[in-house]
């Protein structure tokens, strides 16, 4: 039902943001979807509800305390005495009358559209996308029936016209990978990364990708490295626990200089943690994962736009620098849907554009170069041997224990960082230059922090700003060093228990945060929480 409703809302010109909250079990438990919409871009969820659609008593009991005093509850009429905000409609009875109890969702969708005075547009097209053919007619009737059951209650400002897409974070990441030129994806199922595996499988034939479910995460990453060595841009995806298993091979990608994209869709740890919930606690782990020293890039995804563009960019940079690039996302972003402007497809540079040209017989896979980047060829494509070694090696790729060569190779690999650092993207600055308080955040807290800053600035005439990191390791320092000294108070806002970004910033720049807002209960913080903390200095 959520998918259908969010599409109707989007098609009426509104912006939509949908998050899903489920328990780690296949059936039962309390699962819910939170849909937020409005005429302006919605960047995150909210804890304050205008309405509740409850199909069971639990939903009613658990959420009614978050409902505004003048909010509404749509639920079966048998619970009508529980809360005076209930709109008593015999939803189940009507659904049965229509011939199928499961059309209850479509009836509710109709009711919601009417309450918000929204005309259901392209009904058939929308339903066809989500509902099986044989149930189309009855759901259409149910929707129209629902629409007729109530009067209008809210009137929203008209949405901005323009065609938008609605996409989840993991879909956007996977689509970005396709734009970046992915040809090989291997993974072992693990929430909340599995939808990438599923999505890419569904596009394998259309986009010519080999998608392989590996026997374990170690196989998954070693496969991706093997495919990349043979010339297929490759990615492997997982969550923190699976990333733990991939760590040795991450170093192989660094040592053998094989381009690789690794997606870590974070969930609360340690160990199995809270499998279906959210956290940002893998930062310090992934920036130092694997023994030894080698260059890597870590990009945190902040939004549904980032998920596409930054994943595509990850492929390009992995290939350009022949390094592992780690994409850090989390369950909140992965499973949430947002309506956004369509992606600009023309500007994306695919990884394949970087083929080296080498004269026959002169090839040295690991040639020592000024910028540290050696020519990378595809084996079998030229009369040159392409070699690759996890042992320390000479320019030809042969094992060596020479101290001199070791030093040269170590320095060559690390030299790649010089050029890479020049093309790092600085964090996004949001808010006003008259700020007194500067928030620091990274990844998916982008939405809640941005909203909080904007709302706080409306009340305080511009006393707030934030720096929100996407590229996070190596840490881009320029803007931070410029903005931090001008703040009276610096607060790091993170979805973890130890303030990992604050620690990283302190280590790299000496800048110390005055305060921190940390959340690690597995639920994403909202802008409401940030505002309340900022005002009162206490957590909600």
């Amino acid at each position, binding site marked *: 039902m959520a998918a259908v409703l969010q599409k109707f809302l989007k098609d009426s010109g509104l912006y939509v943001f949908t998050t899903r909250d489920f328990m780690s079990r296949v059936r039962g438990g309390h699962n819910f979807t939170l849909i937020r919409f409005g005429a302006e871009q919605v960047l995150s969820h909210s804890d304050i509800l205008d309405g509740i659609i409850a199909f069971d008593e639990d939903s009613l009991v658990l959420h009614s305390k978050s409902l505004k005093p003048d909010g509404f509850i749509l639920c079966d009429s048998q619970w009508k005495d529980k809360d005076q905000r209930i709109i008593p409609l015999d939803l189940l009875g009507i659904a049965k009358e229509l011939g199928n109890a499961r059309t209850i969702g479509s009836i509710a969708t109709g009711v919601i559209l009417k309450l918000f005075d929204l005309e259901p547009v392209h009904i058939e097209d929308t339903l066809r996308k989500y509902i099986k053919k044989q149930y189309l007619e009855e759901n259409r009737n149910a929707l129209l029936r629902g629409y007729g059951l109530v009067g209008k209650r809210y009137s929203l400002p008209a949405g901005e016209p323009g065609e938008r897409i609605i996409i989840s974070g993991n879909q956007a990441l996977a689509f970005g990978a396709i734009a970046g030129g992915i040809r090989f994806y291997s993974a072992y199922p693990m929430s909340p990364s599995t939808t990438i595996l599923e999505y890419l499988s569904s596009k394998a034939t259309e986009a010519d990708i080999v998608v392989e479910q590996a026997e374990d995460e170690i*196989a998954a990453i*070693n496969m991706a490295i*093997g495919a990349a060595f043979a010339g297929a841009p490759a990615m492997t995806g997982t969550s923190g626990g699976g990333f733990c298993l991939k760590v040795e091979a991450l170093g192989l990608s660094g040592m053998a200089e094989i381009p690789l994209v690794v997606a870590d869709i974070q969930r609360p740890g340690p160990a199995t943690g809270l499998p279906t919930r959210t956290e940002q606690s893998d930062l310090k782990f992934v920036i130092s994962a694997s023994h030894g020293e080698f260059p890597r890039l870590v990009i945190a995804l902040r939004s549904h736009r980032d998920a596409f563009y930054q994943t595509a960019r990850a492929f390009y940079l992995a290939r350009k620098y022949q390094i592992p690039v780690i994409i850090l996302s989390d369950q909140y972003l992965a499973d949430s849907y947002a309506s956004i402007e369509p992606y600009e497809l023309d500007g994306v540079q695919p990884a394949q554009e970087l083929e080296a040209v080498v004269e026959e017989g002169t090839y040295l896979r690991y040639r020592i170069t000024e910028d540290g980047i050696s020519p990378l060829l595809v*084996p*079998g494509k030229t009369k040159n041997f392409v070699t*690759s070694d*996890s042992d320390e090696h000479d320019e030809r790729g042969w*094992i060596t224990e020479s101290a001199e060569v070791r030093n040269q190779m170590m320095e060559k690999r690390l030299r790649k960082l010089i050029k890479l650092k020049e093309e790092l993207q600085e964090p996004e600055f949001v808010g006003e230059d008259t700020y007194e308080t500067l928030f620091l955040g990274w990844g998916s807290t982008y939405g809640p922090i941005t909203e909080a800053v904007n709302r706080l600035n409306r009340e305080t005439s511009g006393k707030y700003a934030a720096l929100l990191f996407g590229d996070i390791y190596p840490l881009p320092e320029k803007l931070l060093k410029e903005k931090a000294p001008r703040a009276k108070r610096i607060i790091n806002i993170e979805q973890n228990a130890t303030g990992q970004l604050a620690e990283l910033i302190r280590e790299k720049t000496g800048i110390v945060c005055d305060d921190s807002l940390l959340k690690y209960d597995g639920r994403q913080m909202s802008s409401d929480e940030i505002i309340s903390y900022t005002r009162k200095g206490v957590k909600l």
Partner: protein
Amino acid sequence: MSNFSTHQTAWCPGCGNFQILDSLKTALEELGKDPYEVLMVAGIGQAAKLPQYISANFFCGLHGRSLPAAVAAKMANEKLTVIVDTGDGDSYGEGGNHFIHNIRRNVDITHFVHDNQIYGLTKGQASPTSMEGMVTDVQVNGNANTPLNPVLLAIACGAGFVARAFSGRKEHLVSVMKEAIEYKGYAIVDILQPCVSFNKLNTFAYYNQRVYELGEGYDPYNKIAAMEKSMEFGEKIPIGILYKEDKADYHQKNPVLKAGVPLIDIERSPDVLKNIMQDFF
């Protein structure tokens, strides 16, 4: 000079690895392979150094992880002749899970296991195929574990080409290697290989006295008989192709690869991105 000419090796004089390397070069030459289209893959160990000693492309990855890298390279470019040469510890110990599951995957690669029944590179600890009772610096009271039977396991897991060979019988080894490389699908050859430095039990003489070639009368297509034959490992050790079965390989079953164009050569339609974005409107 041979197409696959050798570089200097770091093996002990008298090691069975030399004959395996020599046989492999002969096999590749007799098959008329272009060295630039051969990809040698290995993990880590003494055997795993073989790719360094042959003129071909090579990928020397992590201990135990040669198979995932090898099968994926083949998925990326089926024009490559992909050969894994690596140790028994690498293949059956650290890489045991990959061994089982890549049999099921049935990608068209060849897996030569240098089975010296010992961990050579790390100076002589028991491997999964070490004999019960073998005394080492770690197994001070003798190896208490039952040795793994890799050929029986491979047949049981559904491998389509399972063979055993001995490094000391070059002509036979070359012929088995050639058939394994030519086989369309995953082919494993467990090659008995004396380690002169650390395995004092399974010496050249030990193997030489015991091995016998499977004769003309042996039918490798009979699975039950093959399993029975694979269990013979004692006073007599059969060498040759124990089991063979014609079955569809990974590429034939994969919707993207079955047309026969290497993945890296498939031109993606320029409209793919536009079409995919259409789904999200």
